[in-house]
């Protein structure tokens, strides 16, 4: 029974380590550790109290859980994305006498192990070291348990919602909108989440509650899950033609049309937007309303964070493309990347609406600077992403060398913008960052044109 699970873990390890080398891949957790150490060391007691910091850490992993938990819609795509078509155990349900549900359950557990070892454990360890050095006492096991359970709970919740989504889109959209509307109250009571109340007051009762809820949600989801392996030969009307008319302002209209068709027809379409953009946005809003950055302007900081999150859309618009499906056509890699930038901009203009709505609550006076902040952060982070990973952001972010570069190159910029948000220098920085982003994108296009096509 455990062979499948074991095989999957090994498989995942081998795929990543063969891509980046054992060393680089294995050092990924160390980077996480260093990152959380630095973050905790510098913020604790200077900027923020222990309880608030811990709460934020929980929220971070709730965020991660929400965004990776959308298995239900992604279904086999989730497996596909990380394994590629050659896969492997996940697809063996076709050839081996194993049920799909069993395989999926294993996949789910494997992901838990994977995230625990690669993300949660090093993150908590880094924070713990920082706390110890600062003579702040916390119980390591309680923290790691509560963070893991928060992650598990949000993962299961997101998994559950996304599974239900397949059955009734309307229901899920309604649920999400009511969460948005009630967000104020929901977050007010976030301490009632069993995993967080476990951290505040460790008790067996809270532990059991928390695990029980997560198990219930995820087991129900596995049972309801539709992993559609059947060749469904659905017929589709030609959408390229009509979309092209709509997009005729762009030189890359054919490619943009293709991107939207891919997004629309792949499992999940709209839901991807909800799970990777909208839900995290709400959570960020909540974290910020804890008001722990008194020196910065609320709306602008929100816009900066939104810019950083929105860059994740680049990951899913590149998901369906491999260089090799273009390598025999007269088209440069840089043109493909340019078309992706166009698609990215179209999708992310949605964030302008989000910001507009946010500004109604937070004060219209800062709408313009926050829009500018968003535009510059979003382009800058995208530029770095393209420079470092080209068309394969999903896999390459697991390469620790690239991840370090990415973090070092992006986070200072975010901080500078945040810190300057109330000063007049802010406008200067915003424009400078935009200009840098532009230059980097230009450089990346040259870089990727020279690169040999491997994938």
């Amino acid at each position: 029974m455990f062979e499948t699970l074991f095989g999957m873990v090994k498989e995942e390890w081998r795929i990543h380590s063969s891509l980046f080398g054992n060393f680089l891949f294995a050092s990924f957790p160390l980077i996480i550790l260093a990152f959380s150490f630095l973050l905790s060391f510098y913020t604790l007691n200077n900027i923020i109290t222990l309880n608030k910091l811990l709460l934020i850490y929980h929220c971070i992993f709730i965020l991660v859980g929400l965004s990776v938990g959308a298995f239900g819609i992604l279904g086999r795509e989730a497996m596909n994305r990380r394994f590629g078509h050659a896969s492997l155990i996940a697809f063996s349900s076709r050839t081996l006498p194993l049920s799909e549900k069993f395989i999926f359950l294993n996949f789910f557990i494997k992901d838990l192990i994977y995230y625990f070892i690669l993300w949660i454990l090093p993150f908590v360890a880094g924070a713990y070291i920082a706390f110890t050095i600062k003579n702040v006492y916390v119980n390591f096991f309680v923290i790691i348990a509560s963070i893991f359970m928060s992650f598990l709970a949000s993962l299961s919740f997101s998994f559950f919602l996304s599974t239900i989504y397949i059955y009734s889109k309307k229901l899920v959209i309604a649920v999400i909108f009511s969460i948005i509307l009630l967000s104020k109250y929901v977050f007010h009571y976030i301490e009632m989440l069993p995993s967080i109340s476990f951290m505040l007051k460790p008790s067996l009762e809270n532990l059991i509650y928390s695990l029980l809820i997560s198990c219930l949600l995820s087991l129900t989801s596995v049972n309801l899950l539709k992993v559609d392996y059947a060749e469904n030969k659905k017929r589709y009307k030609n959408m390229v033609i009509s979309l092209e008319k709509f997009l005729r302002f762009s030189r890359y209209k054919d490619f943009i049309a293709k991107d939207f068709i891919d997004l629309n027809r792949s499992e999940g379409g709209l839901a991807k937007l909800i799970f990777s953009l909208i839900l995290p946005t709400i959570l960020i809003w909540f974290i910020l309303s804890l008001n722990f950055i008194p020196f910065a302007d609320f709306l602008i900081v929100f816009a900066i964070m939104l810019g950083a999150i929105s860059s994740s859309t680049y990951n899913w618009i590149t998901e369906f493309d491999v260089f090799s499906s273009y390598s025999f056509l007269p088209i440069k890699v840089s043109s493909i990347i340019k078309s992706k930038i166009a698609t990215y901009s179209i999708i992310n203009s949605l964030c302008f609406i989000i910001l507009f709505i946010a500004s109604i609550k937070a004060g219209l006076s800062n709408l313009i600077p926050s829009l500018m902040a968003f535009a510059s952060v979003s382009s800058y982070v995208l530029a770095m992403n393209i420079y470092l990973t080209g068309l394969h952001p999903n896999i390459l972010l697991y390469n620790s060398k690239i991840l370090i570069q990415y973090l070092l190159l992006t986070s200072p910029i975010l901080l500078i913008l945040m810190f300057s948000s109330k000063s007049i220098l802010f406008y200067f920085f915003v424009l400078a960052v935009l200009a840098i982003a532009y230059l980097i994108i230009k450089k990346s296009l040259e870089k990727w044109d020279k690169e040999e096509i491997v994938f």
Partner: protein
Amino acid sequence: MIDIVISANNLTKKFGNFIAVNNLSLEIKKGELFGLLGPNGSGKTTTIKMMTGQLKPTSGSVDVLGVDAIAQPIRVREIVGIIPEQESPPSFLTAEEYLHFVAKIRKLDNIEEKCDYWFDFLEFEDQRQILCKDLSRGTRQKLMFAQAFLHEPKLAFIDEPLINLDPIIQRKVKDYLLGYVKKGGTIFFSTHVLEIAEEICTQIAIIDKGKLLYQGRIKDLKKKRQTLENFFLKLVKE
């Protein structure tokens, strides 16, 4: 008038220490149906990729229709047609959308008409609206075939083109290729199916472990009363 359509000089490709193609020189004239034969892993695909600007050779040079394939890879791909070894059209387009997409990239006009012709000729009209990823392998190969000839190139590179096609379509495609070279086109194709090579090729080359072992006319082999199979087996075993 250029009579030599492909001229490769000392093409070499190394992957790390491994030499996939070793000092290969070939010259191919207009109107040939040229078959590159060799066992699995002998370097056929790598050769085609270098000739079409998809891979940079470690050393050597190659001119295709008078264009330097290393310096101007995109230009080469504009003027030739290529059927890659792995049929991998983007996943969520339908067959029809994919052909349109390629036609747009190649900036063709009369797109509908051209596409209709190929759906009709290769007999997969009924598959037009199916997503590429849901097509059968043979149908996908038909689509890749159509994609390569859509712009009526003077030269086409095809990597194992017939493997998944049924006998009826195979016959059609073979006749198409024969007619195509008669009209002045040139075909460079790789295969390890010797019967096909023997039947349609005007000229062949045999490579093994990246090295060119033989280049010559099928007619000459026939004169010597050699079957291609015997010849191939003897050559490769040595």
